[in-house]
């Protein structure tokens, strides 16, 4: 059974981008890595008759993100200057406020995600990327019966941490 990569690509690309975004926290980089993920899948001769293409895609994406983390330090040295330049061009006032708000909220989510165990976070992100319990179990090596409990715990942690941070922010504002 050969894989229709066009189909897999169309249906999972955005999910992959989001998934990667929550690992590298850089929209452009997430898109680059998502592209690279699919390029590698297409090139992989052994991947043409997989049973679970979607799971494979996320495995590749995951590995790329992990390697990204290793090179991130070196890369940031180059990018620091670029980002500084980009920030100079500010959008209109209303947009700017919205953008700042969004940025802060994103940072809060990032912090909330960092506040849970690696495994819980991984399960949560894979589920949010649209994978089934079966696929998540396969990707993470967990028993399928443990997925529900893990998700419940991860969600609880995410919501509690995030809402606590938002609460404190509003308190600070007065």
């Amino acid at each position, binding site marked *: 059974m050969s894989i229709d990569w066009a189909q897999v690509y169309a249906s999972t690309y955005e999910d992959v981008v989001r998934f990667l975004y929550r690992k590298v926290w850089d929209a452009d980089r997430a898109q680059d890595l998502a592209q690279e993920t699919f390029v*590698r899948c297409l090139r992989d001769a052994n991947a043409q008759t997989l049973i679970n293409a979607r799971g494979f895609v996320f495995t590749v994406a995951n590995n790329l993100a992990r390697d990204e983390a290793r090179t991130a330090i070196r890369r940031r040295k180059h990018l620091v200057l670029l980002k500084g330049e980009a920030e100079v061009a500010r959008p209109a006032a209303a947009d700017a406020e919205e953008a700042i708000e969004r940025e802060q909220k994103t940072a809060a989510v990032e912090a909330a995600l960092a506040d849970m165990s690696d495994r819980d976070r991984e399960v949560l992100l894979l589920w949010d990327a649209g994978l089934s319990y079966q696929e998540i179990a396969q990707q993470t090596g967990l028993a399928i019966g443990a997925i529900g409990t893990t998700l419940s715990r991860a969600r609880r942690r*995410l919501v509690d941490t995030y809402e606590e941070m938002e609460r404190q922010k509003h308190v600070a504002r007065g």
Partner: protein
Amino acid sequence: MSHVDEGELTAYADGAWAPHEADAQRIAQHLAECANCRNRLALAQSLSARASQILAVAAPVQVSTPPFEQLRAEAAPRRQWTAPPMAWAATVILALGIGWFGRGAVPRVDTRSAVMDGSAEPSALQEQDAALVAPSVEASASVPTLTPAPTPASPRGRAVLGSAGAGAATTEVVGQVASAPAEITATDQVAAEEGARAEARDMATGKSVAASVPASPPPPAAQMANTSLAERSADGVMRRMAAPAEARKAGGIEHIAIAEAERRGLELHLVPELEVLRVGVGSKGLIIEQKLGDGKMLTITQTTVSPDRRSDTDGPVVVMRNGARVTLAGPVALDSLRALAQKIR
């Protein structure tokens, strides 16, 4: 009656089971009878929704999916020197001290500034090249660990192998930097990392041999290919560097098929019986890619090393019949590596 535990409720809420499945039916039945668990189910569902909502905040604002055709084009085999796909990422690096190929004599340039100029640019390439040649012994099937690129300050004077007449006995890796800094920088990564340090030492201790246009023909043994390439270069280094845009983009590495390599008379040291995927011709030497099977690829880097150079890698060192040293490293069983080395002999 026993209630449904949190994990099962969550699974049920998430639709982990099809309605007809035994577990789903069991839980549905219980829910019909138990208001408490019905409440808990509602909570699980709202928790799930809230978590989704929060996560949705942390997403890129606009994601447009590029057309698939573009992706397919990019994935096509003609790509330049990039890291191989994940399944091919287990590579074995062999540094063979045998023949070498130079660009002929070129004016010496300030290598330091040349490196500085080029170092920032093809960083992605550098990383990927480093990944391929890094003699790491990491046992994983994913993309090899990227080793840090050599700092720009490291002496790069040994970059190009230009001196064909570099003494009869030694096969010294010495030459002059060609006048295309960016290209050289990227191709510097082509050779094994260990070569960089050893060669720097050689330079420092003055063992290097300054070279100009090769006055005498190169030492006969295993230098046949050197002659052919040197000749090509001697009559016009600039022409060689004005090689196809492809080579320039790849940082000076020209990829050719094995047939072309044979036509040019390049001396290739291969593992017999393994399919040759392609040959990369760089200023430092050759990179030969062979298919190992099991989704693995063998990368053979042919450069020169001085005969008494020590290997910096952790892998086994095999001394070949012609005195060359083969250093093996990679996520392959030690026995397999040795077996491969034997085959090359």
